[in-house]
């Protein structure tokens, strides 16, 4: 606090302190360090005191202080949004025809989240199609190989059992194995027809 500030009426000092605290809070939302934050708050405080000292009165009134504070940038101007938009956003010629609004609404691009959702969904759907494709081929190959094995083994087993007089349950298993070949082949053909 400056020397002059301590000489001000407590109610006036509170107004200034509140403004400086708000600026400090706004700066906290930015990535600037403690040293810089302190420098900025002190610089604003110095400016307020400078403007107070220019008032042609022994003791500044509350209205004087409010007028001075109103002439300064609001605390939000020191916040992260304002700082990240770049200083050039606030730099403009004094010619009012060329000057943009000091705190015009930002036109930040939107739809970033939806774009991420879109690309993620797209990639997952492509992977799913690929998985189904690969698994489908594996399934067809397995059906072909296993049903052929069932057929061959079933026929050979049935022949051996017939010549050697094997058990009835073994014969039944061989017949089921042989029968599975046309059934699985037919089901697979139906499935392929349905998919095509």
């Amino acid at each position, binding site marked *: 606090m*400056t*020397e*002059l500030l301590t000489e001000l009426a407590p109610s006036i000092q509170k107004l200034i302190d509140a403004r400086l605290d708000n600026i400090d809070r706004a700066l906290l939302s930015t990535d600037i360090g403690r040293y*810089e934050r302190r420098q*900025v708050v002190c610089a604003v405080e110095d400016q307020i005191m400078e403007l107070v000292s220019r008032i042609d009165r022994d003791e500044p009134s509350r209205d004087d202080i409010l007028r001075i504070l109103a002439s300064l940038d609001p605390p939000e101007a020191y916040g992260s949004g304002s700082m990240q938009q770049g200083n050039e956003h*606030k730099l403009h010629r004094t010619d009012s025809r060329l000057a943009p609004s*000091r705190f015009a609404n930002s036109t930040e691009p939107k739809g970033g989240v939806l774009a991420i959702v879109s690309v993620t969904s797209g990639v997952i759907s492509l992977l799913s199609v690929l998985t189904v494709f690969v698994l489908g081929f594996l399934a067809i190959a397995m059906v072909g190989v296993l049903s052929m094995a069932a057929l061959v083994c079933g026929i050979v087993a049935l022949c051996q059992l017939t010549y050697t007089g094997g058990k009835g349950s073994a014969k039944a298993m061989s017949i089921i194995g042989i029968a599975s070949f046309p059934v699985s082949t037919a089901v697979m053909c139906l499935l392929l027809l349905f998919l095509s």
Partner: protein
Amino acid sequence: MCVLAVLQDQEGYGYEILERLRSEADLELTESTIYPLLARLSKDGMLLIRIAKSPNGPQRRYYRLTAEGQRRLAQMVKHWESINESVTKLLKGRSK
């Protein structure tokens, strides 16, 4: 660059720098732009800060260029002149 240029020949305090930029360069820069910039420049060693009392009473934070700041300003001016020359050449060529 503008801030460094204002302090090239003489030191100045925050509010004075703002006023000089407004009156000499016709640039309406506000304190929320300049003070963080001054703080960063001083942190980076481009500016030195001297705190002194003003004749009116309140203290002032005077900023002046360091040797590093002078070097940086010279670099920035050179770069600016080069850009300015190129753009001017381009615009002149277009207007023909």
